[in-house]
């Protein structure tokens, strides 16, 4: 049976989702959902270990061999993302019941759970598959589910935000579909490994060029790379907290993975970077994103929004790492994907705890929070330090590689810009510290910490960010191996 392990992360939540919609009773569905989340995480971790030990795993659907049928191809890169996504989901699910009870209407929990599981299915399905069209199918599942998850919030603005996300996301997905179609047109195959070989033969055609263009623009929309980030701040701000935590930590990361997968293993770094000079497009966008979004984040009055803009900036870091096209740069990008997911997840969970008690995520309502919710506030500050890239947090590790990468290439101005952006990060994290610790709490406020069931997942994520700040075999080590492998053409 263990040879069928690869399908567990997809099929398990996919089956659990309809069951959730049938069971309806919160007392039943939350344990079910959470249990599934952890099982999936365990399966993904087992897969990663298997990949690390004995190389890529291939699983053919219905036993039809690759270009004829669909296959899973799990290598270091996607095993790494699988663990990330499922891990975040598992932790967020521990947190979810309490948070959902306060932020969602009672009678929709079963639908919410189903949507959550489907979103997870979609994200994992995108990551695990070795088939280009299959990526699109699962992209649709995850996108649809995330629109629903965002819009379910009690905040009426969430609907509009979800709608905007839906429009942008659909354009992005359609572009990806067009690209896949064009590639199929030119190669006659949808299997990624097969595509990688056959694209080489026709790569100087205009059709493939357009496929590349549609693909990259579609994915840029999905990863919210500046200036295509317009949907992100609203979506993150108005969604229920646990949804924000989950989506912020995983969804853009998976899109980034798709980006890496297509650019590096299908088109090949040589075509994308040397022939097309794609990094010349990515680099300025990444840098602009880093600086502008960080600066905008400083002026936000809503904590969720602040973090959302910070996410745009952090995505800039990741893309910057990718645009370097060197091992160090890619390592930085991959490590930052991982680390940022953990940090942002933790931060949004902390915000969720705050929202639970304050019913608001506006900064002005958080005066004296350091006194009222000392543990949560401290957790937020710790996460914020990670965003800044203070040593001993995971954020430092990725920033270290990023800076080292720029130095290796002799990109002095970029190095300086990155350091300046770190200072901008200090500024926006400081906004919270300022309000929470240096303003007196309102007179009627009592100290009221979030319940333990929310604190524990929050601290689990935080502990991992601190752990991965010291123990980098898993993040940086694996990222480096994956980077080497990607630059080697991914074969």
């Amino acid at each position, binding site marked *: 049976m263990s040879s*069928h392990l690869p*399908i567990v992360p997809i*099929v398990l939540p*996919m*089956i659990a*989702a*309809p*069951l959730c*919609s*049938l069971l309806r009773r919160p007392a039943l569905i939350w344990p079910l959902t959470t249990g599934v989340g952890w099982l999936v995480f365990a399966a993904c971790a087992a897969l990663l270990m298997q990949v690390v030990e004995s190389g890529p795993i291939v*699983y053919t*659907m*219905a*036993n*039809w061999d690759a*270009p*004829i*049928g*669909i296959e899973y191809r799990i290598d270091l890169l996607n095993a790494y993302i699988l663990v990330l996504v499922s891990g975040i989901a598992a932790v967020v699910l521990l947190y979810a019941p309490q948070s959902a009870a306060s932020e969602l*209407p009672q*009678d*929709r929990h079963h*639908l*919410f759970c*189903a*949507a959550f599981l*489907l979103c997870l*299915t*979609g994200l994992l399905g995108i990551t695990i598959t070795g*088939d280009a*069209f*299959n990526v699109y*199918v699962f992209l*649709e*599942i995850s996108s*649809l*589910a995330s629109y*629903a998850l965002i*819009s*379910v919030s009690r905040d009426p603005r969430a*609907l509009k935000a979800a709608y905007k996300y839906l429009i942008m996301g659909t354009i992005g997905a359609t572009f990806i579909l*067009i690209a896949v179609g*064009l590639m*199929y*047109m*030119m*190669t*006659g*195959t949808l299997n990624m490994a097969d595509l990688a070989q*056959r694209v080489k033969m*026709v790569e100087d*055609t*205009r*059709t*493939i*060029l*357009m*496929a590349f*263009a*549609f693909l990259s623009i579609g994915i840029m929309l999905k990863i919210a790379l500046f200036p295509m980030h317009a949907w992100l701040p609203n979506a993150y701000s108005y969604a229920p907290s646990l949804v924000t935590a989950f989506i912020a930590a995983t969804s853009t990361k998976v899109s980034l993975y798709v980006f890496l997968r297509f650019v590096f293993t299908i088109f090949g770094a040589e075509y994308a970077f040397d022939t097309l000079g794609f990094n010349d497009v990515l680099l300025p966008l990444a840098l602009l994103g880093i600086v502008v979004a960080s600066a905008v984040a400083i002026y936000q009055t809503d904590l969720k929004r602040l973090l959302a803009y910070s996410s745009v900036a952090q995505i800039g870091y990741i893309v910057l790492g990718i645009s370097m096209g060197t091992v160090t740069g890619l390592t930085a990008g991959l490590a930052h994907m991982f680390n940022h997911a953990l940090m942002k997840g933790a931060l949004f969970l902390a915000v969720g705890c705050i929202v639970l008690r304050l019913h608001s995520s506006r900064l002005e309502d958080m005066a004296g929070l350091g006194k009222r919710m000392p543990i949560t506030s401290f957790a937020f500050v710790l996460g914020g330090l990670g965003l800044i890239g203070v040593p001993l947090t995971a954020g430092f590790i990725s920033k270290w590689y990023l800076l080292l990468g720029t130095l290796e290439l002799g990109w002095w101005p970029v190095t300086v810009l990155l350091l300046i952006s770190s200072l901008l990060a200090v500024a926006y994290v400081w906004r919270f510290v300022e309000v929470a610790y240096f303003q007196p709490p309102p007179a009627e406020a009592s100290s009221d910490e979030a319940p333990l069931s929310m604190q524990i997942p929050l601290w689990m994520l935080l502990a991992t960010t601190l752990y991965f700040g010291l123990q980098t075999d898993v993040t940086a080590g694996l990222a480096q191996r994956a980077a080497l492998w990607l630059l080697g053409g991914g074969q």
Partner: protein
Amino acid sequence: MIHVVDMTLLAFLAIVAIAVTRMTNLFATSVLTGVYSLLMACIFTVLDAVDVAFTEAAVGAGISTVLFLATLSLTTQREKPQRSPNWKALCVALLTGGALVYGTFDMPHFGDPQAPVHQHVGPHYIGVSPTQIGVPNMVTSVLASYRGYDTLGETAVIFTACMAVLLLLQHEKRRDEQSTVEEKPDKEAMAHAMILRVQSKFFIPLILLFGLYVQFHGDFGPGGGFQAGVIFAAGIILYSLVNGLDKARQIIPPNVLHGLVAFGLLLYAGTGLASLFMDGNFLQYRALAEEATHGEHIGILLIELGVGITVATVMTSMFFSFSGRRRS
């Protein structure tokens, strides 16, 4: 000669598309999108993609339009007037279109037998599938077996859409149900429309029968779960349009409906798992029976049924949700 048909259809398509963008009356726009879908279905038919044409006609021209109209009854019929033309959107659209056209320059000619599409996996499907799968309709064998996993994904997409709609709409509907203690006479139901009722009485069984035919004939001719599901849903929707939502709900209670929504997906995934327990890979129907093609038959039948149930019930419950809101 065929080019004349192509050109005419495409020209109509373009005209309709432009009309859709120019129109400010949303009602007309909805109807025009239906026309657009119908034209698309025609084009698909010309391209010999009958299965797709089927779906497009049923979903695009049929149910989507009904859903659009149901939505319109919740909102206004007129678009908000826009002060200045949206140049940004125009630029994006032109750029995208230009890029697409530019991309076609190096594409193999339409219908070129030397095109990679016709050289790589295509011939394999055509050559081997009748013996390997044992199903005459190659579209079905690709859809249900070779790429059955994609279809599972698509079924999940439909299921997800249903969850999304319910998440958004169900709450209001319930409140509404609690507030209406006694059955109000249903104005919208055209209950007094005798002619309609008689006609629908005559047609609905036919539609449902046709749905079943499409469902189970998918192996041999155009059709299958998606098409059948939509046709089935169209029948139910027609019934509730004529006889009122409450009557329709009596016939298909929401609980049963939601149960079936979930059941369709579970049936599909369950078939996949069953083959796992019969020592095959996931979705390997060949393992379901002694003989490979027999197993494929069983598997395809089951998963098509799963797809059909999901599609039909999802469409129905979406319609119920929208119309349920309209009354509040």
